[in-house]
């Protein structure tokens, strides 16, 4: 099935323009072949179309992302597309910028987060994560997580806590390496499992840090 181009008419109703692959600039009618924020001819901001989190930053579909470079790219794009830059423009252009800027924000957030990034990548690569049995086919993972959870709850001293954090963190970085490898070798099912495990461990880490802050 061909991917449809979705054009945002306002912040809420996405109108589907009929399977148009080639887009026209709304201002000068120049044809825009590749995804672009601005018309290459008249330099006007373009209507937002639906793009995934990789494409919006011009990234290949790889799990590994140079986060430092990405951040600079994000700032660079925001500097051009943020609504603050369109204070003196037409309401339409200002409105387009709201959507572009918003898409940049949410895509950047997802790319920065390992778990969200791999979830998106799995989706793009065609792997279907069944929401209903997310993680629960794997009793082993579940049991491991439960045990860690118990352990975390029984932490009594500051020292125990920091030891535990070191342990979980090293487990996460270990899993992260495996995840990277799984994506490289296109073992998507493994990647999905690893990703779920990492997300649970991250949650455990976050909860522990939160208790630390509250003490």
């Amino acid at each position, binding site marked *: 099935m061909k991917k449809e181009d979705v054009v945002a008419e306002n*912040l809420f*109703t996405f109108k589907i323009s009929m399977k148009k692959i080639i887009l026209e600039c709304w201002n000068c009618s120049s044809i825009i072949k590749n995804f672009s924020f601005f018309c290459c001819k008249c330099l006007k901001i373009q209507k937002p179309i639906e793009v995934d989190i990789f494409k919006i930053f011009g990234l290949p579909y790889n799990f590994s992302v140079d986060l430092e470079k990405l*951040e600079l790219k994000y700032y660079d794009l*925001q500097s051009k597309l943020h609504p603050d830059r369109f204070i003196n423009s037409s309401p339409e252009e200002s409105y387009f910028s709201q959507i572009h800027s*918003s898409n940049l*924000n949410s895509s950047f957030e997802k790319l920065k987060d390992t778990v969200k990034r791999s979830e998106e990548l799995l989706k793009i690569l065609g792997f279907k994560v069944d929401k209903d049995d997310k993680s629960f086919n794997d009793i082993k993972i579940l049991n491991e997580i439960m045990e860690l*959870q118990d352990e975390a709850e029984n932490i009594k001293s500051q020292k125990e806590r920091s030891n535990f954090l070191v342990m979980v963190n090293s487990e996460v970085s270990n899993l992260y390496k495996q995840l990277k490898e799984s994506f490289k070798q296109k073992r998507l099912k493994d990647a999905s499992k690893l990703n779920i495990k990492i997300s649970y461990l991250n949650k455990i880490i976050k909860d522990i840090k*939160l208790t630390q802050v509250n003490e």
Partner: protein
Amino acid sequence: MALLEIKEPGGNSEIENEEQICIGIDFGTTNCVCSIKRGDEIQLIPDELGNFIIPTIISYEQGGFLFGNQVFKMEEYKESKFIFSIKRLFVENPSKKIKFDNLDSDYSPIELASLVFEYLKKCSENFLKTKINKCVITVPAYFDDISRSAIKRSASASGFDVLRLINEPTAAAYAYGLEKETRGNFFVYDIGGGTVDLSILKLTQGVFKVLSSGGDVYLGGDDFDIAFCKEILRFNNLTELENFKSSEKIIAIKKCKKFKERLSIKSDFEDRLIIDGVEVKLKVNIELLNSSISQLVEKTIKISKEVLFQANLDVSDLDGVIFVGGSSRLGLINKRISEEFKLKIFSDIDPDIVVARGAALHAYGLVNGAKNLLLDITPLSLGIETAGGLMEKIVERNSTIPIIKEQEFTTYENGQTAIKIHILQGERETVEDNRSLGEFILNGIPAKPPGMPRIKVRFAIDSNGILSVAASEESMGVSKELEVKPTHGLEVEDMKDMIKDSIINGSVDIEKRLLKESKMEAKIFLNEMKNLKKELSDLSTKDELKKVNTIINDLESELKNDNRKKIKELIKLLDQATQSFSEKRIKKSIKSALVGKNYDNLL
């Protein structure tokens, strides 16, 4: 400076076709400061008396309103005759009317603030000798939607075109970053007269990204003064402040504020105070000040740690602390922050005017173009009510704005054709603990088994921080939207405690949530079984059917109790008992509609 005449607007402006004029206003709880950038220069705008710092005070005198320093020219202070800390009233209730003693009509904080804005506009027009329309106003980062829109409304009512509201700490960092080209992660500690406002900002290549913010809209220098005053009275064995006559009370607090300032030069001295018309001697020293405010200062340290946690940073990731607000001059604050963060403290721009300078810079950039950019955040999470009285967060707090987020929801009853979208703001798990921003109903959902309709709910927060919510059902093309214009304010106590509560009550909340969820899960399951009754008896053996019905009855009666474990157990039993039935159903190539269990919340 002599009182300048106000020029009538109109005629050709001298600076047409040149740079556009847009002023920055720091509308503070205790003071207002206006500033403008023209060319390469940032100037502070004085009132007609030549003062740059204009107290946020109004009084009514001899048939006219007096503002700011005009009020202080009066010999006597009479409490009923002037109104101060208008910004604090915004947090309480922007629409509640306030009475002036010598005036017939009452005024709401919005109306009062708009009078102040009008005055500031006049001061600016006098000084710049041109008509001023555009402005940027700073607000505490922690201000909620209601207070923000109230401030914007006030300024608009006075004839301002408000191009942007920016957060005070961000404005301060902006002033430092642009003028001194600082780069890195900065912690902005802003303590004004009425609010504490803490933010973590990341500065990179001219982009200022707010990572997190937090604060207390009910803690500031004014509270320090009151605490200090009480301590002085206690130490000197004098009448408690509560027993003071109201006019003397204000004078006493004001005097203690002066003592506080004097302590930075001299660590102990003697002075006088008038109590019940009698002048009494009293002793003042720095220990009294420090002990009286130490608890309040510790409160700000605690918020600092939370904000740092929210930004996902450690102390070692920070490059500096920026001090903003008059109270940041206090020795104790300097000492405690130095101890906690061991960082370079930026305080070389006068903390009273740094916000206004940042606002002027931003204002200039907006209308004349700038290389720099501010990426702000939404301070509180936003979401909707889901079945069972829980809040499902759609936009997490500290999300960079503008942001559009979408989430799918579904029905939980057979043939349900309408769904209520109840919009909430806050960090807690359950609906009643968060604040309601509004609601609407989406009708015309096609009648289908539960879990089948796909209802998309979309939250959009634009770069001004204004929220709109829309819901749609794709297959039927029904949709509805709402721009949230909250009409009722959050109670002060709620606001103050909202985020704090979400942490303290975390464990209680989770238990509450788990129970609600288990009950919901059970109800959905039971509902499902009811709908499948006929199929169940067709596909099951007699024994199986009997077993299933017994569990259903048990589960139904267990729902009246709050025993989560028991409910969970029964759900599990029912799940097992219906296993072969659902397998048969799937085999019959009917999509299993048994609702998946949400294990995410087991953890």
